[in-house]
């Protein structure tokens, strides 16, 4: 067995002169749950279709278990897909749908029956063999679609926004279940979603994608707490992005001068540096006065009434969203900052002034590495 079950090497693809994939390279380990996270139109579905063989890349190669499969038809690849709209065959019952792949592989009927029964049990649909797809609910269709794909024991299971059509409660339940199925079968899952919560909950690794490129590849922890780019920071966990001028570096902490209102003295804020970023500073690649961006998550923003060190901002509005109290702060040149978490000091009212600060480790410098966006 090759070291990586799936490898993408410099995949490029254009549709009608629009380049939708601009050189995607990625390696996936056996048994990994990897999620492509990005807004619609970022190229994630095209990537999946190229892995499945439903589209051919203009450039680059796809390796499955060390074998170059770029030129192979979908039916020659040991990869199966759970389609966004399930794509269950409407004229076949649940059993025939799930058995279809096995039948094509000429598995003996007795064995097929056993496997289908087993997989139906796994997706908790035992006894549904005779039902037609039109007689199933959305969640049940979803389970049949998963069963139909995994029963073939693919090297990689591709899932294209499989939970997109389900309501929130069902979606949460299916997240848990998908993770359970994946652990049980030890199949590599390549999951596509635009929902950061899904990505953070289920993935071993997240691939943040934007505009046909990989923005960041990392564990949910890394992507959430150490976003590398402002896009990743904004897309995962909706972080606040501030830009300012780099002042100095001290013990892994960067001091950044963010603009305040004209005429008022500039304010220094802090952000922690990764080792690589600190190295860049030491090499003189980042110099005082240079424009930099930093991210800080809304739940890490601390608010105080009394004037003190930090940004002094106006509370613009206060509202509940997603179970959190959010406070929007108007920051003059800064645009808008959002502070929010459970139990945030609700003593503030719109129109109050607040002092805004955060612990240095909660500030993260982003967009530093320029072209070195590729992960492992």
């Amino acid at each position, binding site marked *: 067995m090759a070291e990586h079950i799936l490898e993408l090497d410099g995949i490029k693809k254009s549709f009608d002169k629009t380049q939708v994939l601009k050189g995607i390279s990625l390696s996936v380990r056996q048994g990994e749950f990897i999620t492509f996270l990005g807004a619609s139109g970022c190229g994630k579905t095209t990537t999946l279709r190229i892995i*499945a063989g*439903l589209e051919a890349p203009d450039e680059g190669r796809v390796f499955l278990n060390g074998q170059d499969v770029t030129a192979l038809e979908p039916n020659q690849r040991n*990869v199966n897909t759970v389609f966004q709209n399930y794509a269950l065959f409407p004229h076949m019952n649940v059993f025939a749908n799930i058995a*279809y792949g096995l039948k094509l592989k000429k598995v003996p009927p007795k064995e097929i029956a056993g496997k289908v029964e087993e997989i139906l049990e796994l997706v908790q649909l035992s006894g549904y063999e005779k039902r037609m797809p039109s007689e199933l609910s959305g969640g049940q269709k979803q389970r049949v679609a998963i069963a139909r794909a995994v029963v073939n024991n693919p090297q990689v299971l591709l899932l294209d926004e499989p939970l997109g059509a389900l309501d929130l409660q069902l979606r949460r339940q299916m997240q848990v279940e998908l993770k359970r199925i994946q652990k049980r079968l030890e199949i590599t899952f390549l999951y596509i979603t635009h929902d950061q919560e899904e990505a953070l909950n289920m993935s071993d690794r997240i691939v943040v994608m934007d505009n046909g490129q990989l923005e960041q590849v990392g564990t949910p922890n890394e992507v959430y707490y150490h976003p590398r780019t402002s896009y990743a920071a904004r897309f995962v966990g909706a972080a606040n992005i501030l830009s300012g001028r780099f002042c100095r570096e001290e013990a892994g902490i960067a001091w950044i001068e963010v603009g305040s209102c004209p005429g008022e003295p500039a304010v220094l804020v802090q952000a922690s540096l990764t080792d690589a970023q600190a190295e860049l500073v030491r090499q003189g690649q980042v110099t005082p006065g240079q424009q930099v961006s930093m991210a800080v998550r809304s739940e890490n923003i601390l608010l105080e009434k009394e004037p003190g060190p930090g940004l002094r901002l106006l509370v613009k509005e206060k509202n509940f969203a997603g179970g959190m109290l959010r406070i929007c702060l108007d920051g003059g040149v800064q645009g808008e900052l959002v502070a929010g978490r459970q139990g945030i000091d609700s003593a503030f009212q719109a129109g109050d002034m607040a002092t805004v600060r955060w612990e240095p480790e909660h500030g993260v410098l982003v967009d530093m590495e320029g072209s070195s966006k590729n992960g492992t």
Partner: protein
Amino acid sequence: MKKRIRFSAIYQAILLALMYVPILVVVAYSFNESKNSTIWGGWSLDWYRKLMKNRSLLEALKNSLILAALSSGAAGVIGTLGAVGMARVRWRSKGAVEYVSSIPIMIPEIILGMVFMAFYAMLGLPFGMVTLVLGHTAFCVPYVYMMVKSSLVGIDKSLGEAAKDLGASERRAFFDITLPLIFPAVLSGMLLAFAMSLDDVVISIFVTGARTNTLPIRIYTQLKSGVTPEINALCTVMLAVTFLLVGLSRALGGIRRR
């Protein structure tokens, strides 16, 4: 509002007068005892009995049925393959190709008939069943093509992809997934084609040989020697068959859209 009701009433009256009154009269007179087609002489099935004994008419009916079966069958295959194939390609000339292939429905039959006759003569084909089948297939294909094309629109493209993803070849995916789903449309198009072939006179007259008579031609030539109640009986039978086929075709179309 009131006006619209009156319009629809007028429409219905005209339709009845122009279509169904003649039909009903003919059907009624096919059961007429009297030989004179203008005098009512009481109910009788005589003309149907005579019809059953009329060898040349029955021969013509047999020819017509064979012709309709062969040409609608051929049109079923060609039209289906055409529609499925065209649904896959993204040529710039696709619209033009589709327009050209649906033209047989719009060209006056008499012109088509002349064209076919001239061409078959040039090829030196023996006029008879072969030329009939060729000609009828040509004008039957568009019916199947259009039926299948519209049913393909309603089929999720990812179904074929899912089949291939599960290990089916292109051909296998077609026979396992696409064909069963469009089959009601194929059948419905073929039934329509069958009905069209069965009652075609114009093209048949041009492309048939001296020895091969189809039923419509037979009726037409017999009419020259006057309308007999026997013809009325035959028309009634044909009408019944046509209504049945068109009704069946519509019912199948309904299943497809369910």
